[in-house]
C-alpha cells in the first residue's frame, strides 16, 4: 500500500491541475492579506471560499483522477497486491496531494504574515483543517461515484449533483423545513440534521470559533451551547472523521466486488 501511495504522490505533485490549484490559493490568500491587515477578516473570507470550493474541487478532481487512472489500476490489479492495498494507496496518495496543495496554498502566505504569533492561530488551524477534511471527504465520495458509474459523463453529472446537494440544496430544504414548522421548537432537529452534511458541520465549527454566533439568535445560542465547548467540538470532529471512515469503508467494499 505504501509503495503505491508513494508513486501516486510522485505523480500528482507534478500534476498541472494541482499546481494550478495551489497557485490559485496562494494568490487568493496573498490578495486577501493585502486587502485587509486583520488576520481574522482574512480567515473569514478564506473560510467562505474554502467551504464551497474545496468540496467542489475535491469531488471533481477525485472523479477525474479515478477515470484517468483506470488503466493504471488494471495494471496494478495484475500485480501480487490485494485490491484493498491498491485502492488504499491510490486514494491515500490522491487525498494527500490534494491536502498538500491546500496546506501550501493557504498556509504559506499566512505563516509569512505571522499567523503563528497571533490569537487567531486556532482559527487558522480550523479553517485549514476544515478545507483539508472536506477535500478528503468529497474525494472519497468521488471515488465511490466513479466506481459505480463506468460512464464518465454520468459520473461527472452525479459528482456535480452531489456537491450541489450538500452545498446548496440541503440548506434550501433545511430552511424550508424551518419555515414550515416555525411554530414548533426546532433547535434539536436542526442540530441533528446538521450532522448529515459535512459542509454544514465544517461551517458550524468555523463559525463557533469566529464567535459570530451571537448574531444567529436563539438557534445560534443553542448551537453555541452544544458545539461551542470542547465536547461539542469533539463531537463535530468525530462526525467529520465518520464522514471519512464510512465512505472509505464503502469504497473498499465496492472495490472488492467490482469487475475491472
Amino acid at each position: 500500500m505504501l509503495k503505491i501511495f508513494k508513486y501516486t504522490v510522485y505523480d500528482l505533485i507534478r500534476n498541472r491541475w494541482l499546481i494550478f490549484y495551489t497557485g490559485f490559493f496562494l494568490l487568493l490568500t496573498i490578495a486577501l492579506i493585502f486587502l485587509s491587515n486583520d488576520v481574522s477578516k482574512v480567515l473569514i473570507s478564506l473560510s467562505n471560499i474554502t467551504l464551497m470550493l474545496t468540496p467542489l474541487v475535491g469531488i471533481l478532481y477525485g472523479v477525474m483522477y479515478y477515470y484517468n487512472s483506470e488503466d493504471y489500476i488494471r495494471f496494478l490489479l495484475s500485480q501480487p497486491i490485494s485490491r484493498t492495498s491498491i485502492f488504499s494507496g491510490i486514494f491515500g496518495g490522491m487525498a494527500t496531494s490534494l491536502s498538500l496543495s491546500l496546506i501550501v496554498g493557504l498556509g504559506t502566505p499566512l505563516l509569512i504574515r505571522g499567523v503563528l504569533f497571533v490569537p487567531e492561530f486556532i482559527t487558522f488551524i480550523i479553517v485549514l483543517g476544515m478545507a483539508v477534511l472536506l477535500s478528503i471527504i468529497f474525494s472519497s465520495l468521488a471515488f465511490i461515484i466513479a466506481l459505480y458509474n463506468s460512464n464518465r459523463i454520468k459520473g461527472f453529472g452525479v459528482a456535480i449533483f452531489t456537491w450541489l446537494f450538500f452545498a446548496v440544496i440541503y440548506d434550501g430544504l433545511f430552511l424550508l423545513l424551518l419555515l414550515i414548522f416555525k411554530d414548533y421548537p426546532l433547535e434539536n432537529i436542526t442540530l441533528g440534521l446538521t450532522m448529515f452534511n459535512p459542509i454544514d458541520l465544517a461551517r458550524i465549527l468555523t463559525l463557533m470559533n469566529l464567535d459570530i454566533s451571537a448574531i444567529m439568535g436563539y438557534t445560534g445560542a443553542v448551537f453555541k451551547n452544544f458545539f461551542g465547548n470542547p465536547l461539542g467540538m469533539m463531537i463535530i470532529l468525530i462526525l467529520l472523521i465518520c464522514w471519512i471512515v464510512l465512505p472509505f469503508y464503502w469504497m473498499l467494499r465496492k472495490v472488492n466486488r467490482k469487475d475491472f
Partner: protein
Amino acid sequence: MIRFLNLEKRFGRNKVLKGIDLDLSQMGITAVLGPNGSGKTTLLKCFLGMVIPTNGSIQFKNESILGRHLYRSEISHVSQIVYFPENLTPNELIKMAKDLRPGTTREKHFIELFELSSEMHKKMSTLSGGTRQKINLLLGLMHDNKVIILDEPSSGLDPVSFLNLKSFLKKEGKKNKQILITTHTMSFVEEIADHIVFLLNGQIYFQGKLNDLLSQENRKDLESAIANIIQQKKSTGLDA
C-alpha cells in the same frame, strides 16, 4: 498448471462465459482466439483476478485462486495499451514495478530490444502511442515468470519491434513456460502458437493443435478456417 472448472460470468443479463472447462497443462504458446465478444479477455481477466466469476472455480498449480493475490507474483501480464500515470517516467515505472514484486528482472534487455534508451527519462504524457505500448510490454515482461499472459500485444507496434517481440516470445515458449496470447492477427498465431483455444459465445469450440483445427475445418490457413467457423455460427444460429 491453469485449470478453469465450469467457469461462468454474467454481466447483468449478458452471459459472457457459459461454463468453461479448460485445462491448460501443456507448456509453450497457446493462442486464445474468438470473435469480438466471445469472452477471451474476460476469461483471462478472471484468471488474473480482475473479473470475479459468477460461478465455477479457477486453479493455478492445483490451488484455487479466487479471492487471492499472491499467486500473481508468478504471472507476467501485458494488457492492451495502458495509460500509465502521465507525470511519471519509464524509469520511475520500472522502479515501481520492481518495488511491487521482487524477483529477477531483465528490463535492460527490453530497453535494447525496443530501442527505448532515449525515452526512459521522459514523462509518459510526452510519449507516442507506440512507445507507450513498448513500455507496457517492458513492464509486463521484465519479470522472468513461468506464466506469461498477453492481450493483443501487437497493437500499435512498428514492424521491427513486432518482429523482435515475436522472436522473444518464440524463445520464451521453448523455455518450458506457459504463454497465453489473445490476438486478432492470424498470421502471428500461425507463426508462433503451439496450441489453440477457440472460444465462441462464451464456450470452448475447439482446443488443440493448429493443424487439427485446419483439418477439422478443411481449410489451409487459419484465417479462412476461423472465418468459416464464424460464418457457420451465423447461419446455424449456434448460440446455446
